[in-house]
């Protein structure tokens, strides 16, 4: 998956203009619930609620969601296999509670991953950075993060173009050539990135930039009833999640 896919989807999402606080409370709140409650039934409930919101309310396209979820869920499967076996004095064997442990891990990891995917498919990273700034993260760090974000797409584009050019000239024919070509892309990329940074810096300095980019934001303010509603559902799930 290329770098821009998720961010583009987030910018075009139906929930793009929903207040950041509402999306953050919903996804990050449930994320915390997912890792805090016992996986059964807590994480399972979180997973179901988040899936319902993802497809029912935010209308995230299924194909896109599957392409984003494939990688983390693959990692989850390989990690869960480890819990199925145990290492004893006689060597490897099946763990007696392995299946249960693996299922619990999968439930929690799925619930948490679904929260992350909902957040990243509805909220561009730049919006989240602006939110972190409002929460009191130092301006310098947020500014560097935002600039990093902008540069990521510019440098990523150059990297893709350079890799295409090399591959069209048989630069990936053997493993040895491939490794060398990638090294040359990286070596070519760093001076370009630095040069681009310098030119941007000159341009910004000429416009009297003092280190913080202030932009108008027309995001609506969060509605308290909605926030309260989300919190109530989360408390309910928390209560449901703890077995009696």
């Amino acid at each position: 998956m290329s770098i821009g896919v998720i961010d583009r989807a987030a910018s075009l999402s139906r929930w793009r203009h929903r207040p950041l606080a509402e999306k953050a409370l919903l996804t990050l709140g449930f994320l915390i619930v997912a890792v805090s409650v016992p996986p059964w039934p807590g994480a399972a409930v979180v997973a179901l609620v988040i899936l319902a919101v993802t497809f029912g309310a935010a209308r995230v396209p299924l194909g896109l969601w599957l392409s984003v979820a494939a990688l983390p869920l693959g990692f989850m499967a390989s990690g869960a296999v480890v819990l199925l076996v145990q290492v004893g004095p006689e060597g490897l064997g099946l763990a007696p509670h392995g299946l249960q442990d693996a299922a619990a891990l999968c439930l929690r990891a799925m619930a948490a991953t679904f929260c992350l995917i909902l957040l990243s498919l509805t909220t561009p990273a730049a919006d989240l950075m602006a939110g972190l700034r409002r929460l009191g993260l130092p301006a310098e760090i947020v500014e560097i993060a935002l600039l990093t974000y902008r540069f990521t797409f510019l440098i990523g584009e150059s990297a893709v173009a350079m890799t295409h050019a090399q591959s069209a000239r048989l630069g990936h024919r053997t493993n040895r050539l491939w490794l060398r070509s990638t090294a040359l892309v990286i070596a070519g990329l760093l001076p370009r990135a630095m040069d681009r940074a310098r030119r941007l810096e000159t341009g910004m300095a000429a416009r009297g930039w003092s280190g913080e980019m202030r932009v108008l934001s027309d995001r609506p303010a969060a509605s308290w009833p909605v926030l309260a509603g989300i919190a109530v559902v989360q408390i309910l799930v928390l209560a449901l999640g703890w077995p009696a």
Partner: protein
Amino acid sequence: MHIMEGYLPAAQCAAWYAATAPFVVAGAIRLRRIIAERPEARMTLAAAGAFAFVLSALKIPSVTGSCSHPTGTGLGAVVFGPAVMSVLGVIVLLFQALLLAHGGLTTLGANAFSMAVVGPWVAWGIWRAGRAVGLGASVTIFLAAALGDLATYVFTSFQLALAYPDAVSGFAGAMAKFASIFALTQIPLAIAEGLLTVVVIDALAGKTDNKVAVLAGEARG
């Protein structure tokens, strides 16, 4: 390799956040000082962060026939210094979670500790030690990048083993299990990354102006 969202229990997520915090805060203070002294470094640092992100999206062939991606930990630590790498590393890990669904927010502390703290410091330590005992630059860079990469994966296995100890053999058994899956398979990748970094530094030495050296000087102090 990143620990995925939801893989660690809540208490361990919090503990790894707490363990990473001092390194990141120290790096952030260093970063603020660099920016206060030379405001133009802001752009170069951001470009360096984006460069590290893009690096992790490039594919390299692995000896086993599959392909992987470079982590850039060794390269970053040698060129920019480990303190700054810890802050840039956290920013990169955050974007990887948000833009690629790679890693996660609850596991950000744990991932940052292995990739933005352990990896860069090991790579940087080997780089300094190698230069001090008079090893050749290429050999030192190879060792720094390869072992920095491997240290990251061994540490990730350690974190996973801590979270999921084996039912019979406890932490040691779990470490053996996770290391055999996640660290042993990384040895060829670590070698590939080491070789890659040597070629990158060689190529860079021939063509850049002193921008990188200047930044490295500022960053390492």
